[in-house]
């Protein structure tokens, strides 16, 4: 019941509304997207609203026409295959359960429509229900269920048909923090159990990172990066991906390269903070050059008086329980660090800062692309 999924040079352009005078074409909602998803893999499509992630999912499901390109499930090009013949299980953000039917009948619905025998339906539901922890709810009506329970039923309904491909569209965005955490864990386990090729679309990067084998990050219809969560977090290909992945977000600041006594430093604009340029970048920087420097809040440290570093005044100290978040005003933004050190500070305190130079990322000021170290 699994299949490889291949998206080949996929394009989508929405047509203008009829009667609209302006004849200019809409921009591509999905622009030359190529993506390969192995058998049994769990893939996340992630991006801000309007990036084309839901459009992509809808094209895979067959709910949206394809402007150009191919979608291949298993060995079949499915461009012209009807949605219900694509072997896809779908669970949307809205659960859309049938209110008069019990949970059991809701899960059974699609099987009944396909005239599957009662005994087999029962067997299938008994197999699926415990996986999603809905076995105690089978006799209940949807109205009595919590949001999290409804979404479990919804997913159960999607997988009971033994789809080749499971598509999840923002399945947790309706739920409160606690339910999300629980359902996230259950979806992770479910995938481990049934190993069905799965695609989840979400705008929540933590959710995506925690669940998937590989992440596809999209922006304005275009794929930015495709890799494991670790790769994307550790080695973002451009400024957009760097800023999108990770919470609190990566510090990305404009810095000027300065040469002082044979050594290169990055000087943060609008602040007196100097960061030694790591050796690997020395051949790609030059005195006076402007670059965008990215560093995660966990890679900025407060160090002792006698260490090397730059003095800076604390603008904001936030005690968030386990972690402390400390921000330093840099122009219109902040340089932020996260520490689990229990020391308390207050606004205005001067501390010595060290930016872990080897953990910095460089991006081109104009294109935002990663500057590759040699």
């Amino acid at each position, binding site marked *: 019941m699994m299949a490889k999924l291949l998206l080949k040079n996929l394009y989508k352009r929405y047509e203008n509304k009829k009667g609209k005078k302006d004849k200019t074409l809409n921009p591509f909602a999905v622009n030359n997207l190529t993506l390969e998803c192995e058998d049994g893999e769990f893939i996340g499509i992630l991006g801000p609203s309007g990036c084309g992630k839901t459009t992509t999912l809808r094209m895979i499901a067959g709910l949206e026409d394809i402007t150009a390109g191919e979608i291949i499930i298993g060995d079949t090009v499915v461009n012209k295959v009807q949605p219900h013949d694509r072997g896809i299980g779908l669970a949307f953000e809205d659960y859309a359960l049938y209110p008069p039917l019990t949970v059991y009948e809701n899960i059974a619905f699609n099987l009944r429509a396909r005239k599957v025998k009662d005994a087999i339906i029962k067997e299938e539901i008994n197999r699926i229900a415990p996986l999603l922890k809905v076995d105690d709810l089978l006799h209940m009506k949807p109205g009595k269920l919590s949001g999290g329970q409804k979404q479990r039923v919804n997913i159960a309904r999607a997988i009971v048909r033994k789809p080749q491909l499971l598509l999840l569209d923002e399945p947790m965005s309706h739920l*409160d*923090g*606690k339910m999300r*955490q629980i359902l*996230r*864990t259950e979806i*992770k*386990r479910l995938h*481990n159990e049934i190993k069905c090729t799965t695609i989840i679309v979400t*705008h*929540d*990067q*933590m959710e995506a*990172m*925690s*669940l998937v084998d590989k992440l596809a990050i999209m922006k304005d219809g275009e794929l930015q990066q495709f890799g494991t*969560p*670790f790769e994307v*977090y550790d080695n973002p290909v451009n400024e957009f991906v760097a*800023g999108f*992945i*990770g*919470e*609190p*977000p990566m510090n990305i600041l404009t810095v000027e390269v300065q040469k002082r006594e044979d050594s290169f430093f990055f000087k943060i604009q609008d602040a007196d903070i100097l960061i030694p340029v790591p050796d690997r970048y020395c051949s790609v920087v030059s005195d006076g050059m402007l670059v965008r420097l990215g560093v*995660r809040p*966990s890679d900025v440290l407060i160090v002792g008086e006698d260490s090397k570093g730059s003095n800076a005044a604390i*603008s*904001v100290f*936030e*005690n*968030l*329980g*386990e972690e402390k*978040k400390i*921000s330093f*005003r840099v122009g*219109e*933004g*902040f340089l*932020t660090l*996260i520490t*689990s050190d229990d020391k308390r500070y207050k*606004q205005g305190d001067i501390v010595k800062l060290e930016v872990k130079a080897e953990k910095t990322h460089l991006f081109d000021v104009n294109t935002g692309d990663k500057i590759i170290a040699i």
Partner: protein
Amino acid sequence: MAKIELCNITKKFGSITALDNISFEVNDKEFFVLFGPAGAGKTTILKVIAGIEFPDKGEVRISDKNVNHTEPAKRNISMVFENYALYPHLTIYDNIASPMRSPLYKKDEDTVKKEVLRVASMMKIDHLLDRLPSQVSNGQRQRTALGRCLVREPNVFLMDEPIAHLDAKLRHFMRAELKEMQSEFDTTTIYVTHDYMEALSLGDRIAIIDQGKILQIGTGDEVYLTPASEFVAKFIGEPEINIFHIDLVKKENQMFAQMLGQEVNCKIEEDVAKVLEAGSYQNVNIGLRGNDLTFSFRKENEEYMNGKIYSVEPIGNKTILVIDVNGQLLRLIAPNDLKANIDDEIFVRAKMEKAMFFNADDHEYIYRHNQNELLGVK
């Protein structure tokens, strides 16, 4: 100068009790946070203070004066709602000036100018006064909206989830912005949120509210380190705190905890043992946050429990590790490079010195090790 007191406020909507005998006091110039889930009654409290809702019972006092019968407009209160709603066609200057040009608070233009400039320099937006809201950054828009509320020099500043509609990343930034401005407000502020990080970050004190009742009032440290009940503990922090039952066993004058049906003896700190004995608590739960459990792939010593990995969820700079110990799921924070597979065997130890102890009968907080030192109480 304004102190705010709510005395035994009850407010019903039909058969639903929105506020159930609520009392608290906000000190002059304090930044006071009302924190609770949706429907807890937080916004109703703000409305009662603002005079938009009339309480069925109880008294609202501002600066020692009963204001129950004072018109909302005469209470000198400024309120900011979820989105800041600046006038898009007005400049930053005119947006800030707008309250002083309303019929009710009409001021002459000289005063308006003086006030706008005062507030704008305080909010560091004095160089942007000629721009439209669409031409400034998010942070600057927020500061404009706050500035607009401050021009009247209100007695009280009420803020209802002002940054809740933003995405998580922008919220981090705006929260820091807000906190940086805090020292400039110089005005008693009541701030409503359902985000625990906002509550911990911003509040001088936090009132935790659920179903129209106050569960605890305290500083960030107090509510985080010594939550009044299991409910409060679960409400603050992510991943959710692990709470489970322990059995108390005494051996040779030393108290041990046994837990989760495992052959472990975890030493209970002496000060905790004393409190438990003095109160003759028998039925006890402990609460351990994600960092208060350690794990290992071998049984290091007799304090390690035997479990199975239930789920591994990397979230960037750390990993949430879910471990199943005899059916109890424990959520731990692990390093982000953790290599582990679902259903692998794993061992986990409770850091008893970090545990919070709760009475399992009523789920109220009892004590934790070094409590007074943690809270800086002498």
